[in-house]
């Protein structure tokens, strides 16, 4: 099955890449490196840069042709993975450059945190549209200011790995749930609809 999907995805790569919104893919990395250039704490700079990079990835799911291609055989989850996978190599390079530039410590934990924030932002974008990606990232940023949320503190490095793993688990689960193909969802509901008239009939009887 995976081989078939890969064969289907290969010829689609170029047209899908052309359909990606270019502005977020340029503006977000530019702002990420602008934040990294500030003369502050390297760990904090890397975290803020990761947030902006996540924002760029969330706009990948914004497919202007989604209504037209909703009926193609390729499932929704595969189409979304395909769109994100096209940008992932560039994102990996940008993240590597950001880590190298800021010389932030605990780079493995920070990468897990980036993946977690990426999954959460993508899930929000998939569920509510790309307009929800910005508020999600900003909510993560502002949560880091609240003194009582110790684990969310922007400058607190003690919980980086745990926070990243938590966000990753929640984000991937949510993304998988909201990316179930609508055709499959409908098939799951059909038996209930088929039973409905019989049930009402039984009640009447």
């Amino acid at each position, binding site marked *: 099955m995976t081989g078939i999907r890969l064969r289907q995805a290969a010829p689609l790569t170029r047209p899908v890449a052309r359909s990606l919104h270019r502005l977020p893919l340029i503006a977000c990395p530019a702002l990420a490196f602008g934040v990294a250039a*500030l003369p502050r704490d390297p760990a904090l700079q890397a975290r803020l840069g990761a947030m902006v990079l996540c924002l760029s990835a969330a706009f990948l799911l914004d497919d202007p042709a989604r209504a037209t291609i909703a009926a193609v055989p390729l499932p929704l989850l595969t189409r979304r993975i395909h769109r994100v996978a096209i940008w992932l190599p560039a994102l990996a390079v940008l993240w590597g450059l950001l880590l190298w530039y800021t010389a932030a410590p605990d780079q493995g934990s920070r990468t897990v945190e980036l993946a977690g924030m990426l999954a959460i932002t993508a899930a929000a974008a998939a569920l509510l549209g790309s307009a929800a990606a910005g508020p999600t990232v*900003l909510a993560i940023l502002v949560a880091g200011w609240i*003194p009582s949320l110790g684990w969310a503190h922007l400058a607190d490095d003690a919980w980086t790995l745990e926070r990243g793993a938590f966000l990753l688990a929640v984000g991937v689960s949510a993304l998988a749930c909201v990316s179930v193909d609508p055709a499959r969802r409908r098939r799951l509901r059909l038996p209930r609809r088929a039973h409905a008239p019989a049930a009402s009939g039984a009640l009447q009887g």
Partner: protein
Amino acid sequence: MSAVVGAPISSRPVAYAQRPLRTIGALGLGEGLRLLLHPIFLGGALLTAVLLASLPRATPGASYWGLVGWGFLPLAGATLLVTNLAALRGRRHATEELYGSLPVGPEARTASVLVAALFAAALTAVLVVAAYVYLGAGAGLKIGWYGETAVPSARELAQGPAVVLLFGTLGVVLARWLPHVVLAPLVVFALLVGEAVVEGTTPVNTFVDHGKTWFFPVANPSVTSAGSFWPCYESPANPCFVDRFAAGSVGWHLLYLSAFAVLFATLALTRTRRPGVLLAAVAGPAVALAAAALLQRP
């Protein structure tokens, strides 16, 4: 019949042409209610409430600093996002051409979203009063390690609503001149990080750059002695002696914020109507006021 045939054809109904303010007011009421009930705005209000409620447990001065502006930044950011989305509604839903067939022009829709920003500022004023009572600011808020207290002035308290209004108008002008949904979150992010870097409280920052604070939306009004910084940071080992709060400069800062709000509103309206004379008439004083406000240092 001949009178009807010979009547001049108007592109706008008489009601709108004669009473545009009434139409804009009605639209603004709808937009304002939509803004107040928008999930992003409600989320921003919740974050602001949680932030303000948690600040008394932080270092001395954090409550005062939150109440005079810093605590309302999440709400301001949310307002910018919501006004931006509202002004981009036609573009996002591909209904601009459909709106073009309506009797009310695009400038009225822009003005109605600007009116909605006033609703956000009014709600912020209510939140300021509620937070003032909740934190017991009337009896003085702790501002130093050794029990020093101070009561925020009305001008300082007005910073929060003014910043929310400014961000609301900025959201509209961004939607009109740079219509892409990604730009508003990036602008909010840059503004919040800029504030945090220049004048943030713990744990993001350890100092206040008084030379730059008056350029940013929320200005830190403290005037500290040499070697001190405010709000206090981590422990009494970091001194935070406040000489005074520069209420006079905050007044000028409010004028600075208002001038920018007027400038943004004018720029947003001129995108569709282009009254060059009006732009020159309003932008000139706005820039002059901004320059005057910048010259006022504590």
